[in-house]
């Protein structure tokens, strides 16, 4: 078996979960414990890392947070992103090239700020064009966030019951996207 190559991914300048979204996680996971924390014991950011394996390679993801339990979406989401990096040339059998790392990092950081502690993990899907999309299909809703190499990211929403559908650009319609993700819990 060949030696595992290791690459490192950093998220939001090593700040996943330590961004605006982190406040929500901190409240959600430690409201009980915080009663015991005195005013002199402020939460401290700590550096964390986790390793993921895909197609014989390993990737290390690093971030900073308050040491709280990771949300259920974290591992499947990160595994999905790492799996994009290990796709071989012509992975779709129609000549697709690699997925653009810049697009992956952009998507990582955008979704990090949108998911709540109990959000379901999206599926991470490569596009032949070198971009990616994040997908949820649940509660009668189809939701896809598309990150392509060219053009602005956008999301597509469809209610399978009512037939209602709409498309919105990002980051302009981030608030609407967050509210739709909230309905998927």
């Amino acid at each position: 078996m060949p030696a595992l190559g290791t690459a490192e991914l950093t998220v939001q300048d090593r700040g996943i979960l330590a961004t605006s979204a982190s406040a929500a996680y901190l409240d959600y996971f430690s409201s009980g414990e915080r009663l015991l924390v005195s005013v002199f014991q402020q939460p401290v950011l700590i550096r964390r890392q986790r390793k993921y394996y895909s197609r014989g390679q390993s990737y290390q993801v690093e971030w900073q947070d308050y040491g709280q339990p990771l949300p259920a979406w974290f591992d499947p989401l990160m595994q999905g992103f790492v799996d994009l990096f290990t796709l071989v040339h012509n992975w779709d059998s129609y000549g697709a090239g690699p997925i653009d790392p810049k697009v992956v990092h952009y998507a990582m950081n955008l979704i990090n700020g949108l998911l709540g502690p109990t959000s379901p993990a999206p599926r991470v899907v490569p596009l032949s064009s070198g971009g990616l999309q994040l997908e949820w299909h649940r509660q009668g809703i189809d939701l896809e966030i598309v990150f392509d190499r060219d053009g602005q990211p956008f999301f597509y929403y469809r209610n399978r019951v009512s037939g209602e559908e709409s498309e919105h650009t990002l980051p302009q319609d981030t608030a609407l996207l967050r509210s739709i993700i909230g309905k998927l819990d």
Partner: protein
Amino acid sequence: MPGRVFEDDPNIPADERLLRRIPRTWVDWDEHGNAVISSAAFKDEELSISLESVMARDGRPPEDAIRNYPGYGLASITAAHARSLKQAVAPDPLPEEPAHGVVYGQKKRGGIGGKLRDGALWVVRPVELELS
């Protein structure tokens, strides 16, 4: 070869099956074990397919489209379904694949890729496999 433009070929009948290879990375398995295709499989403006009638003419079964691609699934949509979504269906024979054709048109916006996917049927289902 992006940048080309294809006109719809009326000689391709409405019930022609258009075959598309589906790698596992475009498949999700739901809680019932069904293999569900991502819309990503149908988003290329110039979407490569194989024309079943041309394969049949050459004595090739549909499964021959994935002969060199172990683990891939094979899905089909009809020409009528593609046309109903404002797509042109045209032959585009290649030296290595005389049955090659194209479903041409904008698919990334308006949920077109997903709607094409909604009309897809499995010809050969892929096998679920752990990646890591």
